[in-house]
């Protein structure tokens, strides 16, 4: 049973790991192969700061909130393991700031210690009159992706550095199931007008005195179009750009100035911070995550594709819940192909 995963970002690698963990002992013939144009440290996941935090509202998409929770709980469970540091996983507290009161987010009971900001805390942020404090997690792609890669390599998963041009290409080579975790490039494999880039740009600085994340929100300009500061283990990320429909991965001087000026206004001490890098990336944005099976007829063969893409600016936040769901879909494919012995049940 050959399974090909297209994409080696957080979604592709975690889906591969989840499937291997769950099925390799039940299915000795299982062979996993990861195909990608980009590997760490050149994926979108590597550029993200790595803060676990969903968007402000789930727009009634309860499934995504459940996947977010599953991911948070999974990561929290790994905090005390010896792998935490290698995974790039650690606790972090911080602030979400608003210029007006807003309803509590869908994730208020998922994170730790969620509460409103006190008046004294708001004094720290002139111009903001309302906000939240909570403790969440950081999962840095620069560490997590290599960690996932090591786990997969130990399990005998093969990696291929190539751009897959079509699902056909893989099926004609004898692949049985394809997992499409190609993020922003999914449109190249199968047109999807709902998938659009949400371009982001960040400045990396050395500001080791900053120990909290600070995310401001401007309800008019939309998510992540307002300054944010996220301290990582090696550098601090300054951001606040979300440009829907912009495909450019070049750093823009105009965006740099706006990020720098806005973040320095938010935290005056940042003026003394040393800039050590800059990066632009495309959030694979979609009204909802596409996580579903698709059967493709190829001649007289039924080819199975599991789509798992469109995680926008919350890929790290939601990844494990989606990986588990993708593994469940894989399980149902195996059942249908009678690859898995069904558990003996009561004979009625």
């Amino acid at each position, binding site marked *: 049973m050959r399974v090909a995963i297209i994409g080696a970002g957080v979604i592709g690698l975690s889906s591969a790991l989840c499937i291997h963990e769950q099925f390799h002992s039940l299915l000795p013939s299982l062979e996993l192969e990861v195909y990608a144009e980009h590997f760490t440290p050149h994926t979108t996941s590597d550029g993200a700061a790595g803060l676990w935090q969903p968007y402000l509202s789930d727009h009634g998409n309860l499934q995504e909130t459940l996947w977010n929770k599953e991911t948070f709980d999974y990561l929290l469970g790994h*905090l*005390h*393991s*010896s792998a*935490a*540091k*290698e995974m*790039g996983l*650690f*606790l*972090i*507290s911080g602030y979400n700031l608003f210029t007006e009161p807003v309803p509590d987010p869908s994730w208020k009971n998922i994170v*730790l*210690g969620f*509460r409103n*900001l*006190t008046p*004294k*805390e708001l*004094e*720290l942020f002139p111009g903001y009159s309302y906000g939240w*404090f909570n*403790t969440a997690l*950081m999962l840095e792609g620069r560490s997590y992706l290599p960690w996932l890669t090591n786990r997969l390599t130990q399990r005998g998963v093969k990696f291929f550095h190539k751009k897959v041009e079509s699902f056909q290409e893989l099926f004609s080579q004898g692949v049985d199931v394809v997992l499409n975790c190609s993020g922003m490039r999914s449109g190249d494999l199968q047109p999807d007008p709902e998938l659009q880039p949400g371009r982001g740009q960040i400045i990396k600085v050395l*500001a*080791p*005195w*900053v*120990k*909290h994340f600070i995310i401001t929100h401007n309800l008019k300009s939309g998510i992540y179009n307002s300054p944010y500061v996220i*301290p990582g*283990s*090696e550098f601090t990320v300054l951001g606040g750009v979300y440009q829907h429909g912009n495909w450019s991965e070049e750093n823009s001087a105009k965006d740099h100035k706006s990020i720098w000026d806005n973040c320095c206004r938010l935290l*005056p*001490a940042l*003026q*003394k*911070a040393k800039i050590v890098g800059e990066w632009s990336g495309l959030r694979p944005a979609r009204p909802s995550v596409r996580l579903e099976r698709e059967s493709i007829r190829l001649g007289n063969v039924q080819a199975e594709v599991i789509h798992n893409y469109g995680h926008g600016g919350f890929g790290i936040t939601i990844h494990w819940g989606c990986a588990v769901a993708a593994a469940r879909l894989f399980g149902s494919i195996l059942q249908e192909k009678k690859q898995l012995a069904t558990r003996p049940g009561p004979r009625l």
Partner: protein
Amino acid sequence: MASPKVAVVGAGVIGLSTALCITEACPSCSVTVLSDQFSPNTTSDVAAGMLIPHTYPDTPIHRQKQWFQETFTYLFAISNSAEASEAGIHLVSGWQVFKSTPKEEFPFWSDIVLGFRPMSEAELQKFPQHRFGQAFTTLKCDCPPYLLWLENRLKAAGAQMYTRKVADLWELHSEYDIVVNCTGMGAHQLVGDKQLFPVRGQVLKVHAPWVKQFIRDGDGLTYIYPGIHKVTLGGTREKGSWSLSPDAGTTRDIFDRCCSLEPSLQGAQDIEVKVGLRPSRQCVRVQREVLSQGGVKLPVVHNYGHGAGGFLVHRGTAKEAAHLVEECISALQGSSSRAKL
């Protein structure tokens, strides 16, 4: 007295902040800091500078609270300014966990720190051996940056600083009008204060930049305080020990205790071991005294004995000491005008 000459003996956080308060309260004063040690070799440099209070047994709570409030307010303003990184002042959030529930649910400082609240059940799950906890955000003064920043402010205010071992406060009487004694543990020898005793503290300073939160055991012995570049792991409270040499067994013990609170510390690098003697006393001595020998008087203001709470109350006691210096100046001017009659 046109320009009173004030000598401040001691260049730890108490000496430097007191000298600075004197320049602020009395701009016409000429202030000189004298010390045998300056940063990074003071006791203050060993301390983490974490603003989490404990209580001085013999000082009224309202006085400790006032000192802490003044200090917190002062540092809060710096942390919020463009100078924060230079001064080494930054906000840190975290948890104080208790194996047995403390008597007071809301300690005297709970409304001074930010966002104080009991820890939730979910948060306590991370600490299976502890049954109660407090979550809050407070300030940390990193040394050497904070001491260097104070030195720069002093220089800008026209104060002088000299490396000098003062063996006896009286030796300063001919050069200075008022002497301020901020010698910490040195006061044991310098003024013969037998109520002053060392409480030895050993700490580890490690590279673990993924640790962004503080964790402190309510017993005060085990703590993890993330600073700008290094995380301070502690500690010990050895009453009466004068030894400044690091102890290897203690290092191992501190590391193990901290790893049990935060397992990821197993991956910490560049472990440095430091020792400091907390200059402890039943209560901080902030007091005026007049030394006299052969008809010559020397006003002295004492500001020492802060024990484990130097950073906690430094600005508050510095202001009080500066106020006492002003009283000394008034007394001197009063007696000098009397002398003219």
